[in-house]
């Protein structure tokens, strides 16, 4: 299935866009989606950590992703 991932912060630069579409297996987890994203965008894994939020909830590695879920990738932000 296709899912759309909304990008925040530095992820916009990494994707080169404010959202990307990725193809993932039908019944999949947040961990699997992260792996696909990191394969397509290796700079993501260099951040050491980032948050995946699914329907405004923090996605632990084993959270399931369904068609129509709203997925946001929110990296850390340092400024003050």
């Amino acid at each position, binding site marked *: 299935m296709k899912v759309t991932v909304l990008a*925040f*912060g530095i992820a916009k630069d990494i994707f080169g866009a404010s959202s990307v579409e990725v193809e993932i297996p039908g019944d999949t987890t947040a961990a699997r989606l992260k792996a696909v994203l990191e394969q397509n965008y290796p700079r993501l894994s260099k951040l050491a950590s980032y948050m995946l939020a699914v329907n*405004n909830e*923090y996605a632990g590695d084993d959270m399931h992703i369904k068609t129509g879920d709203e997925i946001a990738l929110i990296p*850390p932000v340092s*400024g*003050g």
Partner: protein
Amino acid sequence: MQPDWERYSCQMALPGFDEKAQQRLQDARILIVGAGGLGCPVAQYLTAAGVGNITIADDDAVSESNLHRQILYTPADIGSLKSVVACERLSLQNPQVKLSAITKRITSGNVSQLVNSNDIIVDCTDNFETRYLLNDAVVIAAKPLVYGAIYQFEGQVAIWNIVNADGSRSANYRDLYPQVDATQIPNCATGGVIPTLAGIIGCMQANEVIKYLTQTRELLAGKVLVFDAQTMQSRIIKLNNNNTVITSIQPTQEVGVIDAEIAKAGIADGSMQLVDIRTDQEHDEFNIGGMHFELDELADNLDTFDPQKSYVFYCSSGKRSAEAVKLMQEKLPQVKVYSLKGGVSTW
């Protein structure tokens, strides 16, 4: 009502905000770490609202490029210590508040004592090292921490480590981001920041502090608010239960800094070499020579460095070059490295 509480009458008229609530504000001891874009509005509104004891910690001096968003400072303050100027100005705004400046850097050596002597801490820092230091210290000390961070048009706000109904503690920063490679995340000097975002996020942090102290209504506990000043959309993201174990504070890494004068001598006698770690654009506009890698590319170029030599990293302020030095110390401990104090403008 206490005779000197007329100034608080418009907040004490709020439902649920009684004399006891105002008394709790007055009795509170609060530590604000960072007197920059976030720290200025946080300190300003908490002073106005009558938080009794406010300590502002910042070891930085006011620079001209701060002035577009750090609204407590004027051009006449350039070069003065932010924490000192902020306390002076705010004492005039509300003489009933006891304001104290801490001009030392917060490190693993002093953080516990500072956290323990306050009721609530506000993270207005501009770097990951101090964010994690504060986070770990409040978890160990069982104190609440109000978090804020900004970049370009986006900001984040939360309150960490609040006691839940079952006695456990709500999520903290490491539940959101267990660790970060600081060289991979641009800061405001590189990517810019809209000044009004600092105001919005700082006021939201002050708002959480007031709600916490006065015990009026819901807190951003177990949640993080993500705000976009372009679209004005905000989303509140529910976090998992706190499950990160924190039992000790990581020692603050010492960064060797060097003055321009000494670095110039080292370059003249061939013992030192300059490394610009600013962006390509900054480098092209103006540089003082030497090698050039953008900070986030440094890790991929470690084989360039010669263990027989010393290197002086430079950026615009000394902040990014300090991150470069930390990375080098970790990856290539045998190479001698320094960060140019005060950045390229001191050359």
